[in-house]
């Protein structure tokens, strides 16, 4: 959260350069957009000029026909301006949306490449913010910020051009207040920036305090601390209120001040008009036009502060986005990947050392070999390193020492995609995506046909259940499979593993308790899953262990025993103790 609160400067040329790159593919559209905004600005600035013509040339001379002509011409200009403005606004949005789409995809693709190690240390909420809110903020900058700046600049240029063409003296008089306006805006921006920062800071404090005291509300209640906590909160809240009231003060001063400067300008125009009537410099029409120009002129300058806020947030967001894009916690692919020709499914760990942090080894000198087609059960006490073996086999992490081989090839010499095609993983906690039952089984793999899905489901024994659902295989799965039972979810994940028909199956058996009938179904399914392929199982079921071809006993990061159930029991070592601790109870059932 802290990271997300920081607001920096409103313009950073290094960040801006990187951002502008995302507009490069649309440079034609951007150029056209700028051209259109020039047209709009000029047509906007022409409005007071028409008033002048109407008054000074038509009305003054009693030329009713001329007045009609001017009016119609004016109408035509307005129509054109409206149409151009529409296209301009839409085009601007279009470019912004396209650029944002590209950026969002870039972030997402980058995130897909980052390794599990990255996900271990970065809260998901923060990553979501990067692809959603942060990108959204940039959208605002791209579509309203950049092009609006151009159109504002052209509007100002257009106005000055028309003003000068009517009367350069009056232009000077009317713009003589500009320095005051600039100075006032500058002062306001600086003051507001400080108070605004104070408001953000106080909001962050309120949030932190609330977050903590809502999570710890029960502690407050148990220790009868509500009153004091409330007083503390009130203080933060009051600071926030006062910071806001300070901001209000500057706004309350700024807006009337801008109006006043405008009025002074009008006052000066009037004074000058009075003094120069006979010089012919000032006509009624000119005066009317100048008063209209006056109003047009202040708006872009007044809006500057708002644009400043947009830019400030945009810079902060883009900094966070680029920090993410610069993160390169990848598992590096080998330069010349070995394309496995024949896949058998033989696994070997050769003196593997690994720690999640440097020198804090979770696996110490682990070696074992699993011949193709065999089932191996890994058992061990909590923290023995069982799950780590699976993580390494799938190359979620890089090992520090030793080698992991599949069919005699080091896994580092195979592309990650090819490596992972060897496996199907059934993890302890079943993860279902929102979609349908079928899409959760295929995970979008087009090589898995509908027939294959149904066949797999039948084989696992969940077909009956699925057929009873109103939409069968197309039944919607809610987020995280909320509507399914634990047992059903497990069976679906078994079906998924089977449908992929892997050479090697990795099963991390779940320990969650299910009813006896489901338990039977699951045991039956596991049996089918394991047959005819190399399987590596972190076992919690006695039935699975008994049927395994061999059992690897992990203890404190080392392989301590290796053999069949009967052999190991006889040894009366770690396995026999684990058996009594974890599996013996299942014997009775």
């Amino acid at each position: 959260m802290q990271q997300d609160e920081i607001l920096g400067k409103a313009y950073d040329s290094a960040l801006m350069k990187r951002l502008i790159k995302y507009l490069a593919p649309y440079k034609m559209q951007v150029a056209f957009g700028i051209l259109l905004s020039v047209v709009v600005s000029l047509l906007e600035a022409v409005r007071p000029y028409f008033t002048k013509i109407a008054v000074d040339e038509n009305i003054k001379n009693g030329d009713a026909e001329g007045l009609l002509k001017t009016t119609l011409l004016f109408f035509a200009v307005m129509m054109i301006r409206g149409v151009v403005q529409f296209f301009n606004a839409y085009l601007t949005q279009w470019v912004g949306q396209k650029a944002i789409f590209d950026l969002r995809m870039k972030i997402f693709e980058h995130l897909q490449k980052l390794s599990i190690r990255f996900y271990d240390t970065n809260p998901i909420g923060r990553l979501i913010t990067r692809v959603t809110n942060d990108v959204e903020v940039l959208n605002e900058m791209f579509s309203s910020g950049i092009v609006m700046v151009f159109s504002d600049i052209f509007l100002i240029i257009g106005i000055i051009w028309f003003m000068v063409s009517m009367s350069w003296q009056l232009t000077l008089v009317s713009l003589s207040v500009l320095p005051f306006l600039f100075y006032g805006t500058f002062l306001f921006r600086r003051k507001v920036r400080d108070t605004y920062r104070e408001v953000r800071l106080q909001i962050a404090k309120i949030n932190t305090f609330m977050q903590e005291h809502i999570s710890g509300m029960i502690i407050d209640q148990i220790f009868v601390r509500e009153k004091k906590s409330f007083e503390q909160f009130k203080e933060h809240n009051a600071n926030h209120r006062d910071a806001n009231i300070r901001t209000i003060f500057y706004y309350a001063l700024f807006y009337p001040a801008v109006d006043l400067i405008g009025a002074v300008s009008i006052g000066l125009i009037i004074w000058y008009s009075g003094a120069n009537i006979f010089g012919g410099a000032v006509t009624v029409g000119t005066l009317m036009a100048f008063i209209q120009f006056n109003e047009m002129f202040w708006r872009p300058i007044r809006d500057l502060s708002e644009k400043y806020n947009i830019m400030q947030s945009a810079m902060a967001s883009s900094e966070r986005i680029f920090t993410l894009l610069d993160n390169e916690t990848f598992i590096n692919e080998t330069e010349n990947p070995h394309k496995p020709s024949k896949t058998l499914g033989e696994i070997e760990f050769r003196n593997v050392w690994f720690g999640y942090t440097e020198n804090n080894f979770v696996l110490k000198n682990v070696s074992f070999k699993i011949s193709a087609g065999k089932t191996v059960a890994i058992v061990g006490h909590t923290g023995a390193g069982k799950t780590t073996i699976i993580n390494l086999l799938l190359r979620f992490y890089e090992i520090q020492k030793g080698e992991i081989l599949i069919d005699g090839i080091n896994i580092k010499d195979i592309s990650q995609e090819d490596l992972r095609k060897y496996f199907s993983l059934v993890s302890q906690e079943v993860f279902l995506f929102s979609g349908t039952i079928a899409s959760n089984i295929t995970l979008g793999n087009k090589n898995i046909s509908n027939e294959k899905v149904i066949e797999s489901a039948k084989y696992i024994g969940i077909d009956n259940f699925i057929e009873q659902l109103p939409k069968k295989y197309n039944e919607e799965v809610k987020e995280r499979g909320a509507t399914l039972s634990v047992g059903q979810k497990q069976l679906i994940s078994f079906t998924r593993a089977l449908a992929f028909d892997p050479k090697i199956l990795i099963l991390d058996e779940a320990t969650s308790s299910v009813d006896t009938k489901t338990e039977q179904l699951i045991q039956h399914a596991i049996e089918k899953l394991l047959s005819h392929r190399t399987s590596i199982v972190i076992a919690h079921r006695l039935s699975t262990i008994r049927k395994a071809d061999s059992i690897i006993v992990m203890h404190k990061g080392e392989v301590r025993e290796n053999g069949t159930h009967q052999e190991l029991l006889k040894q009366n070592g770690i396995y026999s103790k684990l058996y009594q601790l974890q599996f013996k109870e299942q014997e009775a059932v």
Partner: protein
Amino acid sequence: MKSLLKLIPYLKRYKKTLAFGVLTVILSNLFYILMPHYIGKVMDEIVLSAKNKIVDKTIFINYAMLIVGFAVAGGYMTYLTRQTIIVVSRKIEFDLRNDFLEHIQKLPMSFFQHTSTGDLMARATNDIASVRNVLGPGIMYPVDTLLTLIFALGIMLTKDWSLTLYSLIPLPLVSIAVFRIGKSIHKKYTQRQEQFSQLTTAAQENFSGIRIIKAFAREKFEIGQFKNLSLKYMNKNLELAKIQSLMWPLMFLLVGISLLIVIYFGGLKVIRGEITIGTLSALISYLLMLIWPMIAIGWVTNILQQGAASMQRLINNFETIPEIRDTEKTDKSIKSISGKIEFKNVSFTHLNAVKPSLKNINLQISEGVTVAIIGPTGSGKSTLVNLIPRLFDSSEGEILINGKNIKEIPLEILRKNIGYVTQETFLFSETIKENINYGLDFLDIELIKEAAEISQISKDMADFPQDYETLIGERGITLSGGQKQRTSIARAILRKPKILILDDALSSVDTETEEAILVRLKILMRERTSLIISHRVSTVKDADIIIVLKDGEIFERGTHKELILQNGYYTDLYNKQLLEKELESL
């Protein structure tokens, strides 16, 4: 919209300031509205001077000063408006947020189990902010808009009523357009938001399920899926952009037509000498003044709608009744309690749960006794002890302390005499000293040190940069699980409670330290009652009574020696822990 009525009591507190604020809006409008009128006079003066070939420069200077004067006066009023109405809105925001916290502080544990912190935070920040918008801009702009409308139209009608009516012809179209386009924008906006939340959900699922995605090498597919959703979202955005892009040009066009009508027909009238050029100029200026109010109507409606929805959410919270509180049954004369506790046929079922968590618990605990509670996960151990400080009220049966039903004991007295170390330790981002002293009105560092000694956190102080003054949490140091537990124990015993509850409070403490703590606690709690929940036999073996809970019922009870002989759950647990110890040594 009805929900906004609930804000009236808040507004009443500031009624004088608000009344003054509204007055300043009226005055500022009066001043600003006079400006075009005098500018019109200047125009006429120019025409007159040109015709008569005489110029009275002082008249121009006077008009110029008058206009600047109006701007000063009007501007001062605008300044006052913001300093009153908008400031009041911030004050009410402050009041609302205080009331919000004060209210949820009274709500029971069950409320927090069913309401996410994020949800409550959103209410305290976003919802209150959008209600604030109603109170500030939501009041200021409608009043301002209405007054501008009335004043400008009023003056225009007196200047030339027929021309005014002509010019107003397109204005209803403006309102209709705002309304129609607004509705369409709202619809598109809702669709866009739905698409956005789909995109967010997809990202959320992808990041949470990244292991599965990587394990099945589905990254490319996932990128494709996300691309589809991103495209859909972009298209929704563009649909919205199309309407939004239409809005402004259409507005300006309609207003422009009004302007043309005035210029053409007004111009004809000037030619015919029916009105002066100054009047025409003033009419044009007034017309331009009306543009903003027309647009503001739609905008303000939006603010009001959002504010009303937010207020409704706040009201829902305010209307949640604090179930556990002092009632008329409370015996206010009770000033202290003892450690004699009795459970009489106590049963408890959690909200929305099918099965009861506790069934028919009968238990008598005399003063000075240590009771240990043991049993599998989900057997009701925590629920049992939570009933004592009334974090929940039992569904059936009663709990007596010193013979009095705990519902009759003032809640504050009851809780002040209980020292509770919860299963999940929770410390605040304050100093260690403040955390230990939590909830006490006085601060005696010697007593704090004494409590820290008993809980054995004292020996860690040397490792902390500023010993007892060390800040913990996000901005300070991170404590280990064991350190957190020992700090929590110090916090619970500092208040010298009559009843001490340790809910699995030694699980992260090594056995040696555990032993040291238990010995010291025994002395401290000699005349008080302790309830200790644990999974470890080592923690409970010296208790006066051990209770084994299973499925919400008392399954076994007795001393360590008695239970070992029963050959039941306790014996099994004891043997397993012996085995684990052996395994550890291998």
